[in-house]
């Protein structure tokens, strides 16, 4: 029979023109067929709506890259999603508060025990005990106890708190006559201990480092003061080095620069005395570096005394021998993280900024220039360097650009901004506090003139802000310490006094407030449908989810329909034993609780979109197989009557030429229904935890909603994916229904 | 005595692109015991007309106009016609007359009372003015649809008017036993024991020639002819005064057709019921009808006694229709089928609906709808040229 066919075909092989005509005819037939189909289809309003919805989703899927508000993997910055926990106390309003300090009695873990507020002008001091409590949002937060008031000398210009054994305060008051200053020392309970006279009115003071290190179990405290021409240094010893129970502070020695003028804070490097400690003094002539001599106990190696030794090196302000204008002032020099020599090793440079925005670094040991750089801040044309600070990994540069503040992490090896010039942020105003490095999740804390406390990562990405309610802060935000419970660090606490004169104590272990409801957030981002628990923008996720959804829906349906059609065709064409067996199998498939079995498959093969597609196809072909079989049976009867059979057409030819065209519309029809089913099925599998964790699908969005425990309180997250699933599934279903009327005219009248 | 009078009935169907004017102004009447045949090509509105009588129209059917009087006493009918003539096109005058009669009736009733002839007359007049015997009036809603489950019409159904349906093959509910369906009809209207009803069903089966014990069979266990007989049995269940048989023989083979026709004839003879037999097959009506109405495109073309219509055919359509069927009587006639197709009833032709297919059509035919032309008493043709043509048509026939 086959040979017959071939011969016949050959004999009648059409020439090109005929072929062309034939193809035009075929095309016309197809076009008119399409037109007729569309004319009938169009009558179904819901069908047209369904088509429109599918088309809309298709557009979304294709254009999501450009039209979605954010990238597929976008997460809202923590600045939007995180709210620090805080507690507040109103302070007397007639006092000009200057500072918030955290107090501890233990040098080892430095748990935050008390918070002290102090006014330079009035000398007023209030101390509040603080404990861990329940936060505003039910999280672990902070509780402020009842205050005790002390009066310290007023007019103090320098006051800090030393984390030292039986801790002390130093209050430095410029004496009334203006000649000298006095350093006053108090103990932890605010009892006056003693005072030291400083032989000038200090303009600058060094970094106050307390030399606690694992090697020397206790602390060591050294502090240098300077005016325009003098440097004066004191040294505090642990008690057992002097007399047990009595603390001591000794004056060390002083330097005088009769010709040069000191222009910035002296810098003490290598605070734990292991790598050759130094005192760097910035003068108008250049940086002068002195070695510090440590006297140690012979057995314990404890530092007994510190004294300023010889000039090690000095350098003038030049870059490649060209002079430059240094940025002078309180924090003009920086050595990377003077407290932690281990991390500073190999990066032992002293950096200084220039007024034209350059940075220069000098070798700490030799004083030679190691590098200079002009930091590039993408998107920022001009900026000024104000201060330099240090952290274990970076030199922190603080500056301004226009009205805004600027903070950047500078690589101490190159002077460039880390992360390929990306580790920087602009903030709402000038920084009014030192960026304090805090171990833990959030690396830096600083505040601005506007009173906002910023939390930034090591990469200088702002990931949370805290604005003390009731106006901007009047004091710089300061790190207070940690509160420990059962040996675990539970949070870093910060203090600030706002414009209305209230003390705020806040903890960085605050609350992730995501999922965020729709709205605009501190980062300036607008989340039209809110975010999920991790800060993913819901609208973006829904838009990108369309892709996976269409992919899964269409391909799962396609494969299932292909299987179903083949089974149906074969069963219909060979209605004997083969057909009977196939139909039995179909019946069995139909009575399988397919969703339940799908779960088993998904558990077995692992969650991936591909597996879901295959599983769906394998388990849901039965319905269509039945329909195709009955269509095949009827058309087959007709086809037998047709000349085709008589003239000796083969079975395959019969199937493709005659039965195929009758079957295709049904195949297509059921495919639309199947797509609708596959979309919902994917969602269900995903929701039950068998979805592809690497794909964004609507089902996964809802699963995440469920497992993150927000199913009851985040309607902006609950509704969109579900609505999308319903809409898309419904749309395909409606197309199916409308197309059903085309295929089955019997239905049209309805 | 007139049993049923259909007056200017108009039934349209609402469909997607407009209205199907299935029946567009049909009038006829049937006397007690009389059999009327309603013939016409398929789709001309015969079934629709029948369904309007029993109010079985599908939900998109609307009564656009007309009245159907059933069992109207002759005197009421006379008064009604009198009033219709007198108060034509003046609803106000009718209203006045109505209140006048009402007042008078009140007065006279009080004065004389009882069933004095004068009271009777006034009552009849009132009924005539109110169209009290109009079946449509009982059920018609404002939009022309019918409240077709109302008590009045339900009481008339099957007790007074029953039907033998066009698709009698499927007229029985497949999930109930045939006998039970007959019993259901009987017990619905008559307060009898079920056993009595069953006995009646068996008798009916016997009457129509089915073994009585088949009443416990399901419809699918019956052959086509048996179902048709059972249908007749069902139609007779409550001894109605009027039976409509819609294409009673259409789906049957020729032998069964003959048997069923014989059955119907027997009915007429034995039970003296009035019947309306609807068919597209002229030969059927020829055999059993006293009177014939020929329908085309929702309109009556010709109506009259069977002999009048057959012999003195006065309408070109009737002539064509008769020509297209071989006579049962065996007279040799030429088979002339009418050229063309019946019109689309959504937009039927203007004027005489038959004009696109009529060989005698003139300009007038396209413009004016023909009035009835009385050829001889009781014989009316709706053709402009009926008077001229009937001689000729008869000749052709």
């Amino acid at each position, binding site marked *: 029979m086959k040979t017959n066919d071939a011969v016949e075909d050959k004999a009648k092989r059409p020439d090109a023109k005929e072929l062309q005509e034939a193809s035009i005819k075929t095309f016309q037939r197809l076009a008119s067929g399409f037109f007729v189909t569309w004319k009938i289809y169009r009558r179904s309003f819901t069908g047209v709506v369904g088509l429109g919805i599918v088309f809309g989703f298709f557009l979304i899927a294709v254009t999501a890259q450009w039209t979605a508000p954010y990238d597929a993997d976008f997460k809202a910055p923590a600045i939007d999603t995180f709210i620090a926990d805080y507690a507040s106390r109103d302070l007397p309003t007639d006092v000009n508060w200057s500072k918030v300090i955290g107090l501890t009695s233990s040098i080892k873990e430095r748990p935050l025990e008390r918070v002290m507020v102090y006014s330079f002008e009035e000398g007023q001091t209030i101390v509040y005990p603080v404990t861990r409590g329940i936060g505003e949002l039910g999280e672990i937060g902070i509780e402020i106890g009842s205050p005790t008031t002390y009066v310290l000398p007023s007019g103090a210009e320098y006051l800090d708190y030393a984390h030292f054994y039986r801790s002390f305060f130093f209050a430095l008051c410029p004496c009334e006559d203006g000649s000298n200053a006095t350093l006053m020392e108090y103990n932890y309970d605010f009892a006056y201990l003693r005072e030291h006279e400083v032989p000038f009115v200090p303009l600058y003071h060094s970094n106050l480092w307390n030399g606690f290190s694992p090697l020397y179990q206790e602390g060591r405290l050294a502090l240098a003061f300077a005016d325009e021409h003098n440097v004066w240094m004191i040294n505090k010893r642990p008690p057992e080095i002097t007399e047990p129970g009595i603390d001591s502070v000794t004056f060390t020695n002083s330097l005088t620069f009769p010709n040069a003028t000191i222009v910035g804070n002296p810098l003490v490097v290598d605070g734990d005395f292991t790598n050759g400690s130094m005192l760097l003094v910035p003068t108008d002539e250049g940086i002068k570096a002195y070695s510090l001599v440590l006297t140690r106990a012979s057995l314990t190696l404890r530092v007994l005394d510190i004294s300023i030794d010889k000039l090690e090196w000095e350098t003038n302000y030049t870059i490649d021998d060209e002079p430059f204008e240094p940025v002078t002032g309180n924090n003009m020099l920086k050595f990377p993280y003077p407290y932690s020599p281990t991390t500073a090793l190999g990066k032992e440079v002293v950096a200084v900024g220039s007024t034209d925005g350059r940075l220069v670094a000098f070798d700490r040991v030799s004083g030679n220039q190691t590098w200079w750089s002009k930091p590039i801040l993408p998107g920022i044309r001009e900026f000024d360097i104000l201060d330099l600070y240090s952290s274990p990994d970076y030199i922190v540069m603080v500056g301004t650009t226009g009205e805004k503040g600027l903070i950047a992490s500078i690589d101490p090896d190159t002077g460039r901004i880390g992360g390929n010039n990306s580790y920087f942020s602009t903030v709402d105003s000038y920084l009014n506090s030192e960026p304090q490095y805090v171990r833990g999740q959030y690396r830096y804390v600083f505040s601005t003139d506007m009173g906002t406390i910023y939390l930034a990562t090591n990469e200088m990405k702002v990931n949370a802000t805290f604005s003390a309610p009731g106006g901007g802060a009047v004091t710089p935000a300061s790190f207070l310490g940690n509160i420990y419970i059962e040996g675990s660090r539970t949070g870093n606490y910060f203090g600030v006094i706002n414009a209305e004169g209230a003390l705020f104590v806040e903890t960085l272990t605050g609350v992730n407030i995501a999922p965020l409801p729709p709205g605009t957030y501190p980062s300036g981002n607008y989340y039209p449908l809110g975010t999920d628990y991790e800060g993913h923008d819901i609208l973006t996720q829904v838009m990108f989810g369309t892709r996976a959804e269409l992919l899964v829906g269409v391909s799962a349906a396609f494969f299932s329909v292909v299987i179903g059609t083949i089974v149906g065709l074969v069963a219909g064409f060979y209605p004997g034993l083969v057909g009977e067996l196939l139909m039995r199998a179909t019946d069995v498939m139909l009575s399988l609780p397919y969703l339940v079995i799908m779960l088993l498959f998904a558990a077995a093969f692992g969650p991936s979109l591909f597996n879901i597609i295959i599983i769906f196809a394998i388990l849901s072909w039965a319905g269509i197989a039945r329909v195709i079989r009955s269509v095949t049976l009827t058309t087959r009867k007709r086809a037998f009557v047709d000349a085709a059979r008589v003239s000796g057409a083969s079975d395959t030819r019969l199937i493709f030429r005659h039965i195929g065209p009758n079957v295709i519309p049904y195949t297509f029809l059921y495919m639309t229904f199947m797509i609708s089913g596959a979309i919902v099925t994917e969602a269900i599998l995903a929701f039950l935890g068998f979805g592809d964790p690497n794909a964004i699908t609507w089902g996964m969005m809802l699963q995440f909603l469920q497992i993150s425990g927000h199913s009851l309180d985040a309607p902006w997250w609950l509704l969109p994916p579900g609505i999308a699933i319903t809409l898309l599934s419904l749309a395909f279903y409606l197309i199916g229904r409308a197309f059903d009327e085309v295929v089955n005219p019997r239905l049209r009248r309805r | 005595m007139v049993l049923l009078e259909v007056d200017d009935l108009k039934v349209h169907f609402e469909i997607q692109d407009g209205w199907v004017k299935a029946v567009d102004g049909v009038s006829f009447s049937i006397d007690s015991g009389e059999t009327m045949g309603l013939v016409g090509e398929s789709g001309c509105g015969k079934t629709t007309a029948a369904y309007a009588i029993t109010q079985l129209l599908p939900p998109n059917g609307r009564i656009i106009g007309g009245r159907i009087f059933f069992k109207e006493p002759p005197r009421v009918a006379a008064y009604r016609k009198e009033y219709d003539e007198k108060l034509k096109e003046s609803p106000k005058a009718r209203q006045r007359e109505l209140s006048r009669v009402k007042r008078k009736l009140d007065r006279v009733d009080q004065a004389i009372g009882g069933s004095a002839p004068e009271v009777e007359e006034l009552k009849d007049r009132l009924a005539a003015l109110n169209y009290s015997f109009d079946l449509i009036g009982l059920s018609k809603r404002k939009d022309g649809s019918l409240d077709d489950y109302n008590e009045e019409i339900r009481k008339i159904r099957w007790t007074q008017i029953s039907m033998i349906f066009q698709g009698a093959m499927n007229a029985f509910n497949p*999930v109930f036993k045939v006998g039970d369906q007959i019993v259901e009809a009987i017990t619905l209207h008559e307060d009898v024991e079920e056993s009595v009803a069953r006995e009646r069903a068996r008798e009916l089966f016997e009457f129509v020639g089915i073994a009585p014990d088949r009443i416990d069979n399901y419809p699918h266990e019956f052959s086509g002819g048996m179902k048709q007989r059972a249908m007749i049995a069902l139609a007779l269940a409550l001894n109605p005064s009027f039976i409509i048989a819609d294409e009673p023989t259409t789906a049957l083979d020729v032998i069964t057709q003959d048997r069923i026709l014989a059955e119907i004839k027997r009915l007429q003879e034995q039970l003296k019921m009035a019947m309306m037999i609807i068919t597209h097959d002229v030969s059927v009506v020829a055999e059993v009808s006293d009177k014939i109405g020929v329908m085309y495109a929702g309109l009556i073309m010709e109506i009259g006694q069977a002999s009048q219509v057959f012999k003195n055919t006065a309408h070109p359509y009737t002539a064509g229709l008769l020509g297209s069927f071989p006579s049962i009587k065996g007279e040799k006639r030429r088979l002339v089928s009418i050229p063309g197709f019946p019109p689309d009833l959504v937009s039927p032709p203007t004027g005489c609906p038959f004009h696109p297919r009529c060989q005698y059509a003139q300009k007038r035919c396209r413009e004016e709808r023909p009035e009835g032309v009385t050829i001889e008493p009781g014989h009316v043709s709706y053709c402009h040229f009926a008077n001229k043509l009937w001689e000729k048509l008869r000749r052709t026939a």
Partner: protein
Amino acid sequence: MAGMSRYVAVRSIQTFITLLIILTLIFIMFEALPAKPQDLLATTPNMQPSQIEYMVSLFGYDRPLSERYLSYMVNMLTFDFGISFSQAEPVSEILSERIPRTMLLFGGATVLAYLVGIYLGALIAWRRGGVLDGSSVVISLVFYNMPSFWIGLIFLVVFASELEWFPLTGWYDPTDNLPYVIDILWHVCLPMIVLLLLSLAGTVLLMRTAMLDVIGENYMVTAKAIGLPESKVLFKHGARNAMLPVVTSFIIAFVFSIGGAVVLENVFSFPGMGALYIDALFQLDFPVAQATLYIITLMVLLGNFAADLIYGYLDPRVRI
């Protein structure tokens, strides 16, 4: 009625054969899983050595495939499911607690869905073209295409969390101070309503289509013509026939509904078989997963068998 009993016999045999095939399929699926029960047994912390030994001998994990298959089939058909890997308790005990719950939820919802759906679908079709028809069809279509868990979550939010009409989760809560049965019904209510609505949507659509077919049938005209009141025409003659294709598709509805029950049990933390099944899958608790799947399939098959009997009763044409 001889026809009927033959019909019942044929259908029972068919159902039993289907059950055997499905059991075999389940066996194959579990055999195909990458995790092997022996390995799981070796690592399960809860089970006593004696229990492990029992399980190995019961299911013959160490014997060849054919023997494993045989003992599996025998065990399943005799409802001897062995011991749960994760809970070290007899599976039948765990199941016997869960089955009635799921039966209540799933059975109740399905039966109600059918009763209400047939009624509503018939009514809607009867009033076709009206506001009732349009809105019901749209609502049904929407429900039909909604993911079950999502509508479950929404109901949970609205009726349990916000309005607090129903409890959030569970099966029975002694602190409610309600009689045992009432409290259970109260807990079952919400998931059952959701499942009901979901199943209802399909049934209503199906019934409507079937009814529309029936409305055009001649016997409907006959029923009206003999003077029956509307309700009798609609329900006795119309719905009665329209039900037939709906009952035929019972199996599809069952399959749909049991899927819905499994999902909803998870949404509502309803301790039924669905929740058990998912847990078992996650914990690779083979005996439990196997038994649950089997019982669920059995429930579907028996439900379908019942539907077939009802169909045979409803349609005289099939009882031959």
